[in-house]
């Protein structure tokens, strides 16, 4: 019997392997190609959910829904794809707006008539959300420039603090600031300082930048102008830089008047300073939109800087509002993330055009901010009467207050009556000469009164006056000392006593010298270095322990001659 034992050689084995690999390789490549060509289901979908339904029992966890916009009748949210079937089975009234939302910039667009929807369809994807609200997105990044100038837009935030639950905000902790105080003569004094001439001058200065379209150098220059302005009037300001789109950056200007009693609570008065027109890169004077609101914030800052408040006042000029609220979205998001306690936001946007006299100011709020509209109305009636119209409309999301709504802060938008709207809106003809500065002055007075009322002027005794200081040097053979003799006029208010403060750096780093309140109006500061110049201020303290502002500062030898 012949047995043939076939054992391939090593070279033969290699050849067989290579042949097998060459047969399999094209198959693998083909499968990979097919895999990439096959459309993948997105991990989430964009939906709108009707508000007028019982959502108390959801077929999934509320945290699985990322609410990115609340409007009057609907929420816009992202939900996970695998939950969509449950969502539909639960018969929740809603609609899938886009099945592949990842990374897409969506814009809410305000439409006034149906024809606009057809125009928008030619430019990109459109879904009607509500009567006057559409969702728009397209492949191009410069959405502001391709949309008609007359439409208002808001870029949908990619994240918010909103949920489907009906919550009231501010929180219970912040509710304590809703107290409605009685008339305060100090606020009246502030209101009377609002200057129409100043407002005109500010608007003219902003208009003179030719354009303040965010992304232009002129816009950044106007930001610098605002930064310098606040610093010049004594309000510490800082830039809040942010980037938008993929390649642009700009800065909010944030000026802060720190509160004396609870500085971690803030009242925000804001307005956007960027502008837009048909020729945004060369000419967008934006006197009404929004030089007027910005001017009001400047004037409010100038006046409030002179007074102490219980709570912090923040004067914020936002940028890139016209691009879709980028500046305020950046600020509000980070405020919420950092736990900033904002009592209320007063956003002023277009407050100087009137089609009739007297004109009324629309106060637009969402339902959770209704208290703020009531506060605005009551404070205005007390200190700076004017016609106001309260409108509760969560769908009015086309200005910076909306960014704060998204982060569950109470905010309102003060805006001129819309019917008819300013014919120069987003046009190169939006200039100072078309504005009614009496109306702008009234709005500024009202807003100042509300801001001051919310921030609560510190009710303290007046600071002592007539502080004088003389110093003399005593010397032995080897050592010398300086002694300062201070005296001041008795306070005209009922005070418990006085505090004396000293510093070696003028207007900074004061240190209290007395351990107990002084009941006399003089003080001797001894054993000082004769080679150092010292500066002093005195304050008065009332029976409730409230301390006045500092008196005028004096140098130690101020009255030696």
């Amino acid at each position, binding site marked *: 019997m012949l047995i043939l034992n076939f054992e391939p050689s090593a070279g033969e084995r290699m050849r067989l392997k290579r042949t097998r690999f060459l047969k399999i390789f094209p198959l693998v490549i083909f499968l990979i190609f097919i895999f990439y060509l096959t459309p993948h289901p997105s991990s989430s979908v964009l939906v709108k959910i009707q508000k007028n339904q019982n959502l108390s029992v959801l077929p999934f966890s509320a945290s699985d829904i990322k609410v990115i916009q609340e409007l009057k009748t609907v929420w816009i949210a992202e939900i996970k794809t695998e939950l969509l079937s449950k969502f539909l089975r639960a018969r929740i009234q809603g609609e899938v707006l886009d099945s592949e939302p990842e990374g897409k910039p969506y814009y809410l667009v305000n439409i006034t008539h149906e024809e606009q929807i057809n125009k928008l369809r030619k430019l990109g994807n459109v879904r009607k959300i509500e009567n006057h609200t559409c969702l728009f997105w397209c492949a191009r990044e410069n959405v502001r420039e391709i949309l008609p100038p007359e439409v208002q837009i808001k870029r949908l935030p990619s994240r918010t603090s909103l949920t489907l639950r009906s919550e009231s905000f501010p929180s219970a902790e912040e509710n304590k600031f809703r107290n409605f105080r009685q008339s305060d003569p100090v606020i009246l004094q502030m209101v009377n300082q609002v200057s129409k001439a100043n407002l005109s001058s500010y608007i003219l200065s902003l208009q003179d930048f030719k354009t303040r379209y965010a992304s232009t150098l002129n816009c950044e220059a106007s930001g610098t102008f605002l930064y310098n302005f606040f610093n010049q009037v004594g309000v510490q300001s800082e830039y809040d830089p942010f980037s938008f789109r993929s390649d642009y950056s700009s800065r909010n200007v944030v000026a802060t008047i720190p509160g004396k009693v609870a500085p971690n609570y803030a009242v925000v008065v804001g307005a956007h300073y960027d502008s837009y027109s048909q020729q945004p890169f060369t000419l967008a004077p934006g006197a009404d939109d929004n030089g007027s609101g910005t001017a009001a914030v400047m004037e409010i800052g100038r006046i409030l800087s002179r007074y102490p408040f219980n709570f912090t006042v923040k004067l914020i000029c936002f940028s890139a509002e016209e691009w879709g609220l980028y500046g305020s979205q950046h600020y509000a998001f980070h405020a919420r993330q950092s736990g900033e306690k904002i009592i209320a936001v007063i956003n002023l946007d277009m407050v100087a055009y009137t089609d009739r006299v007297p004109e009324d100011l629309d106060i637009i709020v969402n339902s959770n901010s209704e208290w703020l509209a009531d506060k605005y109305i009551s404070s205005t009636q007390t200190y700076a009467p004017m016609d106001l119209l309260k409108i509760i409309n969560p769908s009015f999301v086309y200005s910076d207050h909306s960014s704060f709504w998204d982060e569950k802060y109470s905010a309102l938008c003060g805006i001129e009556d819309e019917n008819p709207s300013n014919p120069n809106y987003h046009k190169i003809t939006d200039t100072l000469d078309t504005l009614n500065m009496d109306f702008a002055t009234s709005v500024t007075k009202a807003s100042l009164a509300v801001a001051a009322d919310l921030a609560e002027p510190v009710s303290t005794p007046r600071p002592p006056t007539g502080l004088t200081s*003389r110093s*003399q*040097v*005593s*010397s*032995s*053979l*080897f*050592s*010398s*000392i300086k*002694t300062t*003799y201070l005296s001041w006029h008795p306070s005209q208010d009922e005070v418990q006593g006085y505090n004396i403060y000293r510093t070696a750096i003028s207007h900074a780093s004061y240190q209290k010298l007395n351990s107990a309140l002084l009941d006399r109006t003089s003080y001797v500061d001894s*054993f000082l270095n*004769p080679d150092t110049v010292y500066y002093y201020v005195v304050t008065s303290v009332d029976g409730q322990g409230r301390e006045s502002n500092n008196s005028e500062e004096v140098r130690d030898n101020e009255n*030696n001659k």
Partner: protein
Amino acid sequence: MICRKFSKSLAAIILVFAWTQMAGFLRAEEMLPRFSVSLSAGCFFPQQKSFRQLYGSVQFPLNLEVNYVLSPQMDLFAGLRCLTSKGETEIVGAEFVPESHPIDFSLYSGRLGIAYYFLRTRLSLFMGAGLSYNFYKEKWEDTEISAKDKKFGFFAQGGTEYSLGKRYSFVGRIEYSSIPTKESSKLQKKINLGGLELSLGFCCRL
């Protein structure tokens, strides 16, 4: 620095001079008692006006001195001087409110010098010079403020000695001293603690 160099030179001269005088003395026929101790008190008039303003025009120091006779004309002496005083601070510049602080001053000096006697009779005349090492302290009584330091100084003196017998004598002396410091204050730049001193004392030969 200059003062220190000068002091060292002066000390060297004194030592050389004393050595030569000692040699002559050993050859002298009539031997004198070698040691004497004197105690004197006097009136010190500070040279700087600021010192006088603070502590008064006249101070009263005490001197204890030991003399060693090197030769009939030459004595080597070493001593201690003590001056304490109380005063009040002064206002420098404009004064609006009367203000003064009590102050204490003390000066302790160790001294080494040489005296040359022109004649040694019942009434002797001498002149001398030497170095002093001075400890001074000024303190404000109502505060913690104080200043203290150590400084070299020098002095020159002339005087007379009236012998009451073989052992005892009266000594009268006039002396100028200089104790420069590098300190200064609003009242005085370049403080010098020296001045003129008149003193009278009693001397006992051992």
